[in-house]
């Protein structure tokens, strides 16, 4: 049933500092709302738990793409449309551009933010596998200061994150070290346009001749949170990949991802299907590396 909107409070503090002070003084009382593409859906069906919201989507301090010498830093309030239009991201982090382009429709991309996609912490979200494979770090801020941690340490469980009640995700930093990498991404959903993933894989590989020097796989909907597939990566790094070794390597990779994946049955798919598709995607990625 739809919520009674008169029961909800929403304020838009005039600055980031004001937001942080409110979070510090009334810890745990408020939920942050940016583009509203998740929370307004929850409101519509009567599942928005918090009655008090702080609007942050008007804050310019959180909406930026900054190209530094060694990293591209994306403010948490940056929209998917902003990301799609950024040329440096398109050139150096094509998986970021691709995942932004299939996160919802144009109307949702105009409102939805990278920070919202991460903090909503859905295991099926589109950008987390990409950020995991790129080895991103996240900066969390509060009235008391800031801390930076690897994005791989941000998700703690189903819809659970490392954010404390007085903290806000400020920005996401992606290192600019992937120019020599082969990059792969594929999302499998019910249809191409704005579907929620049944499974998605983002993968990067650096080859040195025929040898896999580095390999990174980020996955959506293979566990209760977005994950790096470390065991599968370890099974492949250092191996030689040629026409002769490919079939054996594919078998190794399929076995490793089948063992590592912890998918579930839900309304969108079954665990069995998800595991099978994940193995197919990893296989497709490996085959793309040869020739």
């Amino acid at each position, binding site marked *: 049933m739809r919520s009674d909107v008169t029961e*909800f409070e929403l304020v838009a503090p005039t600055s980031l500092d004001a937001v942080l002070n409110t979070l510090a003084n009334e810890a745990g009382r408020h939920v942050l709302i940016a583009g509203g593409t998740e929370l307004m859906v929850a409101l519509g069906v009567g599942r928005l738990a918090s009655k008090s919201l702080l609007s942050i989507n008007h804050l310019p301090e959180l909406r930026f793409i900054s190209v530094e010498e060694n990293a591209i830093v994306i403010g948490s309030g940056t929209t998917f449309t902003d990301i799609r239009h950024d040329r440096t991201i398109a050139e150096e982090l094509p998986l970021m551009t691709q995942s932004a382009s299939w996160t919802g429709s144009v109307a949702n991309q105009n409102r939805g933010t990278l920070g919202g996609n991460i903090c909503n912490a859905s295991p099926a979200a589109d950008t987390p596998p990409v950020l995991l494979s790129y080895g991103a770090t996240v900066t969390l801020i509060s009235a008391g200061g800031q801390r930076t941690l690897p994005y791989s340490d941000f998700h703690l469980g189903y819809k659970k994150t490392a954010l404390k009640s007085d903290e806000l995700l400020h920005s996401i930093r992606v290192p600019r070290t992937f120019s020599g990498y082969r990059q792969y991404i594929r999302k499998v959903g019910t249809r191409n346009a704005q579907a929620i993933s049944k499974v998605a894989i983002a993968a990067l590989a650096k080859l040195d001749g025929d040898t896999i020097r580095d390999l990174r796989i980020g996955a959506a909907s293979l566990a209760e949170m977005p994950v790096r597939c470390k065991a599968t990566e370890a099974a492949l790094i250092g191996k030689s990949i040629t026409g002769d070794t490919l079939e054996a390597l594919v078998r190794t990779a399929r076995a490793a991802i089948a063992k590592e994946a912890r998918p579930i049955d839900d309304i969108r798919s079954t665990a069995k299907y998800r595991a099978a598709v994940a193995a197919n995607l990893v296989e497709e990625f490996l085959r793309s590396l040869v020739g």
Partner: protein
Amino acid sequence: MSVKVQLTINGEPKSVDVPPMKRLLDVLREDLHLTGTKEGCGEGECGACAVLMNGELVNSCLVPALQANGARLCTIEGVSTEGRLHPIQQCFLERGGAQCGICTPGMILATHHLLDKYPNPTMEQIQEGLAGNLCRCTGYMRIFESVQEAAKIQEAKGQAA
């Protein structure tokens, strides 16, 4: 809880006192009586409630009223000028791009947004630009043809001007 929200709708300044989390869709329909904007799914999937907010296409069912404060909005009521249909509307009418009409206001505004960005859109750009707008009548082909025709007319007008 109620707050004052100021909007410029279809060029006219308006002010409403509404709960801050009230959906922009409901503000338009209930407080401003602009019922051209439709509700379909109410969860951002169907695009029936799409409007332009500061020139950007948004689903008004997902915008809390307070976040629209100070915004410039264009709804389907603002697309025609001086009682004359906009070329996009005329093309939807002539090419059979509208049947039951529920998706049409959102389709027209999504097309408006699309043609602002890509005056000569490819079929792929049209399909992507309208992917967030669901239609259960037409099968989409006539809608795509309407958009292509509108692009041609706008281009001809641009060259004439």
